[in-house]
């Protein structure tokens, strides 16, 4: 583990479990853990903070010294990557294939052509076309030990990183809370219990407008919840509301996309991908999710 500054956290006990709270990845983070004693709960807090900080420092595109920024800065040249980064990139490539090109970790540059502050915009077709030149996973040379972006391309693992961190942290601390632990990194949730028939955690799904109105409730023991969509981030073009999810195939926001999609699955990484992919299906998001046979909540 690196030398990241330790994240400050708070620890408190309830009747049935410990609550660790900290802030990371631009989100409030919370861990509920049924630990044997305070000593184990502290270990959960320390491990979770360290692992979250490690992943954020390594994969954030906002940090100059992150692996992602190193790759972006050296676009045009081959950058050697470690095992973990290679696995994430490999996963990103698989997501691209599985989504038929809708989910693309190189699509971040398209955001430069759009402002999602709720206002009316007039898209610049030329700019979008030129940005699309720098989008497309197949343009990336990746061979398990190194990656080379085309000049002008940018990698953004933001659509994977937080979910991945939730899974990793839960995995890491599970042995300290065999009766159950739930990791919540800004709404990306992963729960693990080693004891069969452990008491479930009750998770409320909030209205995407952020009014803290629960629109659904889920019991979670072993599994994950991820949400895609942010109701506050949209723009209007000729009076038509468009959400912030961009389709890398067109460079435009997906039309008729739900305001938010919440997916319940076995891992947070998987749930996050399915939620984003559903958004990218626009008007048929529900049909897509129905066909997957998974539990989900769509808000339109």
């Amino acid at each position, binding site marked *: *583990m690196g030398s990241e500054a330790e994240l400050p956290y708070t620890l408190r006990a309830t009747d049935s479990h410990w609550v660790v709270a900290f802030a990371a990845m631009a989100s409030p983070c919370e861990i509920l853990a049924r630990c*044997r*004693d305070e*000593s184990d709960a502290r*270990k959960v807090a*320390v*491990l979770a903070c360290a*692992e979250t900080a*490690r992943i954020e420092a390594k994969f954030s595109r906002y940090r100059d010294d992150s692996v992602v920024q190193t790759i972006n800065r050296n676009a045009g040249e081959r950058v050697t990557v470690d*095992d*973990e980064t290679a*696995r*994430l990139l*490999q*996963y990103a490539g*698989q*997501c691209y294939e*599985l*989504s*038929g090109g809708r989910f693309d970790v190189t699509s971040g540059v398209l955001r430069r052509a759009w402002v999602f502050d709720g206002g009316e915009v007039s898209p610049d077709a030329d700019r979008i076309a030129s940005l699309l030149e720098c989008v497309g996973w197949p343009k990336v040379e990746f061979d398990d030990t190194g990656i080379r972006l085309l000049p002008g391309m940018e990698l953004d693992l933001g659509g994977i990183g937080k979910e*991945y961190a939730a*899974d*990793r942290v839960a*995995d*890491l601390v599970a042995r300290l809370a065999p*009766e159950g632990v739930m990791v919540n990194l800004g709404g990306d949730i992963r729960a693990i219990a080693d*004891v*069969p*028939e*452990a008491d479930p955690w009750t998770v409320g799904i909030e209205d995407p407008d952020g009014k803290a109105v629960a629109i659904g409730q889920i019991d979670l023991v072993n599994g994950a919840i991820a949400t895609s969509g942010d109701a506050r981030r949209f723009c209007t073009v000729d009076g038509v509301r468009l959400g912030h999810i961009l389709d890398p195939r067109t460079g435009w926001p997906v039309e008729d996309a739900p305001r938010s999609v919440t997916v319940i*699955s*076995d*891992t947070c*990484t*998987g749930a996050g*991908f*399915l939620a984003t*992919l559903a958004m990218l*299906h*626009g*008007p*048929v998001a529900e*049909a*897509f999710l129905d*066909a*997957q*046979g*998974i539990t989900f909540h769509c808000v339109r």
Partner: protein
Amino acid sequence: MQLNRPERIRTAVTACTAALLGTSANASAQAGKVDSSLLIYSEVNRVQAAEGVVDFKKTVNERRSYGLRLVLDALTGASPNGATPSTHVQTFTGASGSTGYTAPANEIPLDDTFTDKRLALDGTLVESLDRVTVVNAGGHFSIEHDYSSVGLSGGVSRDFNRRNTTLSLRGSYNHDTVSPIGGAPAPFGTMPPPTNNGGEGDGEGEGEGGGSGPGEGKNVGDVAVGLSQVIDRETIFQFDYSYGRSSGYLNDPYKLLSLVQNESDAEPGEPLAYLYESRPDARSRQSLFSEVRRYIAGGTVDVSYRYYWDDWGIRSNTVDFLSHLPIRGGRALEPHVRWYRQSAADFYTRYLVDGASIPSYASADARLAGFDAWTAGLKLSFTMNEFDVLSVGAEYYTQLGERGPPAIGILQNYDLFPKLDVFMLRVGFTHGF
């Protein structure tokens, strides 16, 4: 909009995330640990031993781990040689063949030439074939000056029923070689008289069987099936059946039987000769084991019962109670109590009587006698930080021999199976990394 083969996406996502998360799960998790301990074993007035253990376990990745274990023993002291007490001083040939040892009058003869060091090395490899199937394979090697052992073991376990049930199958095979100094004595062979010509000189002439001969072999095979069942959130039940068979040289080459004078002889009960023991050359062992472990108020209580029987006629019952009680500040107490009772082997006899027909097999080894034993102990462990645990434990073991049939002649005056008391102190240190 294309929605072709959507189900495949979800299945594929599961596979892709498993590949992503599965192998990385240990990237910064504890990847291994070292357990080390030192045991001081002290039989009151008998054997004293020290044992050091270093147990190294390393997780290579999500699916594979291996372990290496090194054990070093050193023991010295006196142990009963099987002979009966006498009103006279008794002289025996020592394990070294030439240097004898004597037993004072009216005392149970002890062989105090006993000293040994042992080195044992074990290696295991554990591999998950999938999320519910685990296989393991191991090798074993140990050596001491007159004994060596090599072995292989393997097993497979599989989870069923939403991981609430685990079935396991284990097997092992060991080949041991016994190479007693002076060669392995013939069954019922007479112990040669000691060549103690005043204690001086080296007693070069060791007579027949000098040197450590080629050694006698012993093959030991074991198989076991186990079932572990989660009863509820707090309770786990374990059941095992095991079968083992040993064949080859099963005698203890240092154990004797006194051939004593019969009722019509001049001194009934006094020894006429010392014969080496004779055991069958095969032994089949079986045991049934059940255990219930329950989590109660943050701690665990573990109660187990074992029933053992073999074709030498030994039956034993073991009841074991162990509890793990966490106390404040990462400390824990572990009280332990065990009760054990075994019946004697069919051919166990405290001595042979002159003139009576000699049976096919006979041994006076106290370990084959009927007896009861109690063990009580307490361990205290301190979790020092995320990675280090220190423990100190003490145990007391006491063995009570059962009273045999009325003894012959002078032997009625002795307790032929005296009490054995053992104190054990173990200090352990576990370091995770």
